[in-house]
């Protein structure tokens, strides 16, 4: 696995951290530096565990995995838990990452809203929830469709 995309992965994580600091959303969620570090620890450990368990070796670290799982663990560790963290995570995954795939695909607002509502059920009504792995694989599937579609054109 290549080291050289860590700068780009860092930018994706910082974009999420910065979004939570905007005046519109800052009052909803308190995320300390320690919380960010704890969440990144959990997310990276889960990333390597996932790859090891399923025997996955990628050309580069998957930003869909890192961001989905960082956002999830940030929510879990936040001093003041608020689902705004999920909104920020999905906004980046959809409009900054998926949109910049070769076909420029994005999920529509209805699907985003449904996914957001399913995420907020995690830990409360698990039978209605999507969870961290569901969040990742939903966007990963969209990326795969985009890649396949671009090969057909």
């Amino acid at each position, binding site marked *: 696995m290549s080291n050289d995309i860590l700068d780009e992965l860092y930018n994706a994580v910082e974009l999420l951290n910065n979004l939570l600091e905007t005046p519109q959303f800052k009052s909803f969620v308190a995320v300390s530096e320690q919380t960010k570090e704890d969440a990144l620890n959990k997310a990276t450990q889960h990333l390597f565990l996932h790859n090891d368990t399923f025997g*996955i070796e990628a050309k580069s670290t998957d930003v869909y995995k890192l961001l989905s799982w960082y956002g999830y663990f940030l929510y879990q560790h936040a001093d003041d838990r608020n689902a705004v963290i999920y909104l920020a995570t999905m906004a980046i995954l959809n409009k900054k990452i998926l949109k910049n795939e*070769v076909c420029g695909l994005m999920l529509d607002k209805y699907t985003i809203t449904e996914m957001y509502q399913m995420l907020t059920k995690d830990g409360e009504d698990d039978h209605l929830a999507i969870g961290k792995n569901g969040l990742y694989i939903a966007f990963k599937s969209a990326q*795969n469709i985009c890649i396949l579609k671009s090969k057909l054109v």
Partner: protein
Amino acid sequence: MTKTKFKEIFENSRKLAQENKKANIISNNGTSESVLKSLKLLSDPEEMQKAVNELSNDMYETFKEVHKVDI
């Protein structure tokens, strides 16, 4: 979070994982070149701020839609 701290945490997790690495490997797309290019742009503080502004507006719209409230 500083970039140094980010890399330190990432590399620590990688080292821990390597001790248990299995030989069974399948391919995966990882992060696309086009996505990497757009993420690289965020190293410029102006581009980062532009992205924050765009996405916070998008988040606000979804928030209003779900919670039927204005912030």
